[in-house]
């Protein structure tokens, strides 16, 4: 199939038909909007089955090598499929860390064994992956990871804990950043990156209640957990570089992800629809000049992100700072999503106080919940404040603050 590529138009139509026929109907439970919000087994199993179905149909990992479970097709085809899945508002791909971080990383620098062992099961959703970067006391400061991994023969004995491990209780593997050498000149040295099995003794993921009142994250405790040196990816002591490579996949500055959308994003169209269903001051909300102005600003933000992506594909129009648009995507998208939730909630007058679980809650309370959940993206993966540092320093060339030690 990689030799005789299908016609783009025909393929687009084929995907559209498949999605139309196969997308799941409305469930009787409120679906999570991203893998960070999976709080019940029911939600998890539903999403796992859906990812598997999409993969089996051939619409996931299309650009990944055939020999590991992909289809070795040009990225363009995956993009068409991913867009269509998003457009028709199908559920997101739940094995997000596997598809977007671990998979690309293993393909990029894993051993042949690792590729064979992991890639296909990431795509089919047979094996869920989670990430173990953040620690309770060092949120955004990954370089300060303190989870100890002490060498003991061919193994490492791990002690400490990781936090914000989404799907921790469902995961078979964790990408783990641990300190194998505590005596280095720089905190960025002495770290090692592991593909860590979750089912070994001494690894214990404990769910954390989110501020939304729901679950979705774990704190994962390591208590003399023994990991084999075979689990290392990259070299011992060079975990920082591996982690940075991994984050590059997330921040969208480079490609390599498996495709399929990873969020059921709220759209501005939904907020406008909501506005049309609510009143302000005795008239439809969309007649209120201040609300109108707010909605137009949001439409513009939304369009700007789409148009940025379109412009980023034209080298002559991004020549001054090619990294600017890709590196700003996470900042803009996450802040926009939060704003969307906030404005949507504010449209509801006194009824904005209803929350998930109340029969009177507009749209089941998804708006205030969406606003609160949106913080996961303005905080996780580097807070918006840290994103601005990164953009300021790497894109604009502004100096870092002086080192203090």
């Amino acid at each position, binding site marked *: 199939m990689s030799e005789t590529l299908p016609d783009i138009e025909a393929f687009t139509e084929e995907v559209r038909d498949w999605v139309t026929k196969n997308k799941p109907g409305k469930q009787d439970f409120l679906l999570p909007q991203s893998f960070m919000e999976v709080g019940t087994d029911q939600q998890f199993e539903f999403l796992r089955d859906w990812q598997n179905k999409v993969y089996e149909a051939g619409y996931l990992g299309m650009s990944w090598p055939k020999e590991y479970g992909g289809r070795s097709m040009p990225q363009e085809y995956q993009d068409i499929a991913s867009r269509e899945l998003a457009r028709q508002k199908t559920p997101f791909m739940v094995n997000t860390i596997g598809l977007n971080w671990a998979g690309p990383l293993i393909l990029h620098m894993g051993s042949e064994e690792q590729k064979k062992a992991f890639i296909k099961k990431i795509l089919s959703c047979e094996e869920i992956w989670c990430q173990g970067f*953040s620690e*309770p006391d*060092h*949120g*955004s*400061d990954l370089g*300060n990871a303190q989870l100890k991994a002490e060498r003991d023969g061919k193994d490492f004995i791990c002690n400490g804990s990781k*936090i*914000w491990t989404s799907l921790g209780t469902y995961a078979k593997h964790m990408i783990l950043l641990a300190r194998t050498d505590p005596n280095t000149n720089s905190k960025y040295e002495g770290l090692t990156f592991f593909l860590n099995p979750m089912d070994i003794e001494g690894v214990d993921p404990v769910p*954390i*209640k*989110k*501020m*939304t*009142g729901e679950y979705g*994250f774990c704190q994962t405790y390591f208590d003399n957990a023994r990991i084999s040196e075979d689990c290392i990816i990259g070299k011992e002591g060079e975990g920082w570089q591996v982690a940075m490579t991994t984050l590059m996949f997330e921040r969208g500055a480079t490609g390599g992800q498996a495709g399929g959308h990873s969020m059921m994003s709220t759209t501005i169209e939904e907020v406008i629809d909501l506005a049309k269903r609510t*009143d*302000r*001051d*005795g008239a439809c909300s969309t007649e209120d000049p*201040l*609300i109108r102005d707010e909605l137009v600003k949001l439409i513009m933000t939304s369009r700007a992100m789409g148009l940025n992506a379109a412009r980023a594909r034209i080298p002559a129009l991004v020549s001054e700072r090619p990294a600017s648009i890709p590196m700003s995507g996470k900042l803009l998208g996450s802040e926009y999503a939060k704003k969307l939730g*906030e404005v949507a*909630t*504010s449209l*509801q*007058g*006194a*009824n*904005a*106080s*209803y*929350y*998930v*679980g*109340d029969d*009177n*809650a507009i749209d089941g*309370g998804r708006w*205030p919940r969406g606003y*609160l959940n949106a*913080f*996961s993206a*303005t*905080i*996780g993966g580097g*807070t*918006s*404040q840290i994103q*601005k540092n990164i953009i300021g320093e790497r894109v604009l060339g502004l100096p870092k603050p002086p080192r*203090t*030690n």
Partner: protein
Amino acid sequence: MNTRRDIEFSEEQQQLLEIAENFCRDKSPVAAVRTQIEVEDGFDTGIWKEMADLGWLGIAIPEEFGGSGLGMGEVVTIAEPLGRNLLATPFEATTLAAQLILDAGTDAQKSDWLPRIAEGSITALALSEEHGDWDLNHVTCEAVKNGDTLTLSGTKTLVTDAKRAEIILASVKLGGKTALVLIDRSALADSALTRETVIDETRRSFRISLDGVSVPAANVLNAAKTQSALARHHKLSCLLLSAEACGGTAACLNETLEYLTTRRQFDRFIGSYQSLKHTAVDILTGMEAARSFLYHAATVIEEEDGETAVRMAKAQSSEIFSWAGDRAIQFHGGFGFTYECDAQLYRRRAMWNTNQHGDAVYHRKRLAELLLD
């Protein structure tokens, strides 16, 4: 010719504020707040009794009806610390109900009901409905008069503490006009009450079905005074919500500062970063403005300029409380995203507070009419 000061604050208010601050700090540390969230009633009846014993429910009720005959300026000094310590009690609703009765009640109603309230009878306000409109005249519940009896119908929403209330004051349409009706809680079957799930988990909010409920016709407040009473009610509600928001903002800011001065990232206290420090300053200055508006509104609330003053207080305090809560979550980083972090308590409270009686945009629109037309 002496220029009237924009803010007046009496010896009496100062004492009350101090007492209330100490009371709330003692009775409602955040651990106690979290305990009450898990408790069915949502507040500690022992504390309520103490508040009644302190005379707080009768502060703005005239002495002849068992109160102490002070004003809303004194009530504010209680409401602000209550908000600061997230102490959710029926204090505000009970106080506001008393003012409605005072403003529009008949002599008999005042004599019958106000002393009960002054003594601590919990009173619930049933003024909202499913449409969620802030207009107090947007009422669809109905009352039909039949001899000496009124038969009610329709549903009221967002009635806080209805379950524990002894008195419910509801708005209904009577002969096409908005009327206020006193309902003895015992006239309602338990099944008429449905607990609502609301964003602020410290609140106990109920939906009430009035279908088939009968009350004596004598329980209707004076029709001729109802409109002006409702207008004043809107102002007083905004005043107390502003007080609550000012208190909440102060606590939320302090909670955030505590984190910023103890949490380190990249070998520095995070509060040394300007993106956090400067935002904290913006919240501080926004809060100072809100508090100045609040005590100005408390000073002039019964005067001509009261409406302008209180709308400014509500607009400013709603906005800054929401922002303080939002930034509290963000600045606590991953921890801020957990239920365990107190930031969410303030943010949820701010949502409730903002959504009552009009948000900032709404009040600025009214202010434009007052100030520019």
